[in-house]
């Protein structure tokens, strides 16, 4: 049937069947705007920024984002209130800020088993208020807030905390309602109209930050959800943004987010001494907005407000990684395990490429007649690989039998591979995700090295049963060592990625075994004739 199609029709079929993978997302999951945007962000964001930004002259250092040096009030015994959640402890200090959010889950702990902390010890903390009036600000730094509660449990539902600061000329009332899922309502009331700023807070630098994971600030602006990312160390002079949907200060797995801040609200991104972005928004006399602090968990954020999932980013490859994550999440809902979800993903990709492989298998049958001729040609053109290859290819075309897989199926693996890598790197859900037996964290390298070794072994076996014709003995040697090179190369890769590749190899082996068997049966049948 395929032979009757014109080359153009076959080309379309080939592209279509390989692209179905991406299309599935579009049908099952409506495309999120951000994914489309990310594609063009490189260009548009710059344009968008120049539209909304107005670089101010104020030098950053004088602004006093960094309160650590002047915090006479916020010394060690400065904790006003402690909220204990199911898997975190949130503390509020006497400056009316979120002093710390400590994640109690073991998977977030670092190598020394110290729990992950979401707020930087130095620098501005979330919900810190700075007054534009210097004298007022100085006073505010010295007068402690009071709280209506000291301690509360936040296992379910919500807890309201009222923080009050009585200054000589002004009373500040912060009504905070914390919800167990990590988001909170903010209601700030000033007895008099004063100009002030509220800080988003900064994340600490995690010591075991992984290669290529992005940290910094993200601003989502406009109806088109244009995403601007200011990476740590890359922040420039103060920039303002309007029409902000959400603003986030994020690390690999966590984020502090402000949202519902109002379309007119000015969001400013300044830099600190290390050129890390410092984010604050301009408040009103009576001002309400929402915030979130916690892991960038897709389900939690989606449940709070679907738009918040825009805060999850996978670097420049988001346009492919985000749909891939959606698909993995979809699979995870059925199988309940991320490891198995990856295995099924591999299978799905295999099935989608099956029209290609099936056609390849069909041509295998014809190879029998061809192989003696190939040997003949190889002998004839010994020492001239170019001529030999050309002659062999001409023969394959003439006989309509080509045993080779082609470059397209191979190249298609690269974006899939990279997207999985990004997802494993950034998706907090996969952190500490178990598979079977010894695999306890798919996002981390396999400490037992068993998975990379299995990967190398399956690769070796796959090579072993796949027929290949080498013209250059040197290349052949290197080719034989490739599984070993790959094993070492994969050792430090996240276990989930190694799992993907190993399972992929296993499927290739099964496929090749079927082909070989068919071929052998065919050979036998011919001989008996």
């Amino acid at each position: 049937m395929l032979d009757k199609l014109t080359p153009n029709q076959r080309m379309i079929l080939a592209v279509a069947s390989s692209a179905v993978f991406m299309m599935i997302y579009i049908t099952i999951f409506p495309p999120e705007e951000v994914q489309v945007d990310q594609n063009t962000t490189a260009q548009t964001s710059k344009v968008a920024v120049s539209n909304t930004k107005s670089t101010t002259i104020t030098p950053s250092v004088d602004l006093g984002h960094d309160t650590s040096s002047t915090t006479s009030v916020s010394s060690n015994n400065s904790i006003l209130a402690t909220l204990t959640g199911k898997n975190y402890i949130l503390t509020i200090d006497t400056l009316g800020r979120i002093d710390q959010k400590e994640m109690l889950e073991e998977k977030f702990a670092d190598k020394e088993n110290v729990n992950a902390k979401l707020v930087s010890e130095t620098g501005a903390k979330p919900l810190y208020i700075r007054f534009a009036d210097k004298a007022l600000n100085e006073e505010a730094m010295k007068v402690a807030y009071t709280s209506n509660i000291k301690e509360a449990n936040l296992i379910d539902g919500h807890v309201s905390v009222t923080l009050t600061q009585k200054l000589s000329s002004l009373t500040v009332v912060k009504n905070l309602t914390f919800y167990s899922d990590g988001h909170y309502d903010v209601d700030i009331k000033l007895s008099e109209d004063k100009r002030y700023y509220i800080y988003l807070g900064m994340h600490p630098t995690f010591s075991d930050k992984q290669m290529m994971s992005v940290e910094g600030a993200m601003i989502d602006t406009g109806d088109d959800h244009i995403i601007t990312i200011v990476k740590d160390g890359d922040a420039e002079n103060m920039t303002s943004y309007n029409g902000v949907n959400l603003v986030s200060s994020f690390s690999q797995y966590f984020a502090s987010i402000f949202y519902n801040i109002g379309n007119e609200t000015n969001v400013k991104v300044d830099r600190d001494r290390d050129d890390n972005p410092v984010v604050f928004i301009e408040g009103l006399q009576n001002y309400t907005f929402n915030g979130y602090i916690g892991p960038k968990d897709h389900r939690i954020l989606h449940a709070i407000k679907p738009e918040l999932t825009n805060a999850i980013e996978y670097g420049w490859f988001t346009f492919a990684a985000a749909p891939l994550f959606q698909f993995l999440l979809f699979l995870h809902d059925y199988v309940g395990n991320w490891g198995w979800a990856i295995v099924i993903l591999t299978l799905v990709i295999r099935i989608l490429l099956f029209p290609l492989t099936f056609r390849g298998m069909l041509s295998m049958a014809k190879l029998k007649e061809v192989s003696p001729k190939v040997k003949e040609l190889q002998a004839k053109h010994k020492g001239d690989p170019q001529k030999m290859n050309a002659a062999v290819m001409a023969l394959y075309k003439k006989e309509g039998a080509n045993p080779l897989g082609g470059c397209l199926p191979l190249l298609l693996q690269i974006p899939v591979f990279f997207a999985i890598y990004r997802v494993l790197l950034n998706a907090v859900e996969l952190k500490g995700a178990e598979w079977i037996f010894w695999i306890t964290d798919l996002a981390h390298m396999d400490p037992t090295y068993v998975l990379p070794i299995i990967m190398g072994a399956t690769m070796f076996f796959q090579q072993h049963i796949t027929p290949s014709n080498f013209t250059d003995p040197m290349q052949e040697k290197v080719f034989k060592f490739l599984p070993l090179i790959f094993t070492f190369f994969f050792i430090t890769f996240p276990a989930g990625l190694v799992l993907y590749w190993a399972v992929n190899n296993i499927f290739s082996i099964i496929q090749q075994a079927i082909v070989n068997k068919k071929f052998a049966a065919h050979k036998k049948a011919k001989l008996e004739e």
Partner: protein
Amino acid sequence: MFRTIILKFLYIYQRFFTLIGYGSCRFYPTCSEYAKWQFDKNPLHIAFIQTILRILRCNQLFNGGIDYPLVKKLNCKIKKDKISNIKYWYVPKGPNQFYLIKNFSKGKPC
């Protein structure tokens, strides 16, 4: 400039990375070799499109076989008429169309 970068990249690819998928190309010349010839002798945009189309063709739905790049213009300057100095053969296909075939024989003309 851009051309040189791409050719350098292709050289590195062929030297070091091609082994990952060794012997999977269904064509002669292989996709990477085809790309090299394209970028060597065709305008950049044509080389790009042709190379991408070639990679898309390189799967089991196509028979593979011999597939040489096509050039429209002759842009060769032969300095010495030694066969070892000839880089490509231009084999006429139709009016103003040539197959581009690299000359691999070194030294002795035959």
